Structures are given as structure tokens and as C-alpha cells.
């Protein structure tokens, strides 16, 4: 599906979002030691949840705005 992340953020579907990012999260767990990995996973999920509103409100330029910005 195209722009899937965008759809999930707009629908605030945290579960699906975490599922998409599962491999990245699993990889980042290696930053900490064995015993703390579950905690870290929780913390990352929480961080993403906290940021959902902010993520929804991000404004991006449209096609011709982008071209204008890039010229300047």
C-alpha cells in the first residue's frame, strides 16, 4: 500500500505502526543488554505514541511549493 505510514499515523493506528517498524525496533534493542530489552521496547512504543499528535501535524510543501523553495 502506498504511503502506508502516513495512513497509519492519520488513523492513529499505533499497533499497525509498531508492526511496520518491528524490525527496526528489534534491531535497536541490541543497543542495550539482554535483561533490559523488554523495557526498552516498551519505552520506544511509548515514545512513538507520545509523538503521534506531533507527527499528524507536520506540514509538508506541495509540488510547486517544493520547487519554489528549492530555487531560493
Amino acid at each position, binding site marked *: 500500500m*502506498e*504511503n*502506508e*505510514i*502516513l495512513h497509519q*499515523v492519520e488513523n492513529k493506528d499505533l499497533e499497525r*505502526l509498531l508492526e511496520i*517498524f518491528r524490525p*527496526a*525496533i528489534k534491531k*535497536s*534493542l541490541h*543497543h*542495550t*543488554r*539482554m*535483561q*533490559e530489552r523488554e*523495557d*526498552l521496547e516498551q*519505552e*520506544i512504543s511509548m*515514545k*512513538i505514541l507520545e*509523538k503521534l499528535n506531533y*507527527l499528524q501535524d*507536520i506540514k*509538508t*510543501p*506541495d*509540488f*510547486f*511549493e*517544493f*520547487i519554489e523553495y*528549492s*530555487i531560493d
Partner: protein
Amino acid sequence: MKTIREKEFFRKYANIMKQPIMKGFLKSNENQNIFSRAINSMDKDSITQLNSAFRQYYKNVILISYISKTIHFSAIDFDKRLRNYYKKNLPIPGVAEESNNQEEHFSMDVLMSSIEDTTFNNFQNSQHNISDYIGNPELISSMKSLSNKQLYILELIYIHNINNKQIAKVLNESEQTISYNHHAALEKLRKACIKSKI
């Protein structure tokens, strides 16, 4: 095949069209069609469509980048905080040992009284077997194929959080041997897991 208008557009904004975000946007056939329609006809509807398709694509890219960075840096930050915590809060024997369990009780005096370093002995007495921590019976049986040394190394690393350097000192081996044995053990277990489809 590009039309003259498209070619002109690409020539006029050559630098912009070379940017990864543009290339990525035009990679999908759907976006490519929207783009051609808008550039060739220049009517209001198709330009609006192009604008909104690009806006969505751009936002999607930004979200991916933002979330990936959040994941990466919160992991690093978490570990840093944890290390700091353990550095500042070393376990002090005798202070937190106010339990009723007399057997495990030992105070600072006991530790200090011996000329010999008893830290490791104490540690050895309080340790458990690594198979106590594993729930899967098939995994336990496949662990029997490991040598005692390998089991011991796994135990020290995964249960007691001891690093290679310290293990090397305890076992009187080189760090490389420890590292090799650690990985060999993991590889053996991995193969056993695949074989028995755990």
C-alpha cells in the same frame, strides 16, 4: 516517452528533478501519470492532484525518517541512562541485605576480613544453572551438546552481565577464546533450533 513540455520542465528544473525525493516520487507509475497529466495539460484539477499526491508522498517520507530516528536515538539514550544509573548506584553489600534470610546475609566486615579476594567465590555460591532460566525443554536438551566451558560462558554473559574481558580473567583464557566460544555456542544452538523447528 516524455512529451516536449515534460522535457522542457525537466531541463528547466534539472537540479530539483535530480533530488532523491523527486526521483522517489516519480518512481511509482501512478505518480508518474499524475505528473505527466499536470505538466501537459496545466489545468487546475490535475495540478491540485499533483500537489496533493506530492504532499502526501513527502509527508510519508518525513514520517518514516522521523520514526526511525526516534527508535534509534531512544534506544541509545535508554542505554546511556541505564549505564549511568548502574555507575552511580553500585550495589553495596551489607546495606541492602536487611532480609531475614540469615544464610545469604553477609556484611561488609565479612568481606573485608579475608585477605583472599572472596568476591568471586561469593558470586559462585549464589549462582544458578543456566538451564533454570530456559523454559523450552527442546532448547535445554540441545544445550547438552555444548561443552561445559561454553555453557559457563553463556551463563556469565547472559545471566550475570559479565563482559568478555572479565570472563577471560576468571577463566584464565584469552578474550578471543571467550568470544569464539560464545559465538560457537550460539551458532550450535541456532542450528539445533532450526533442526528441531523451535
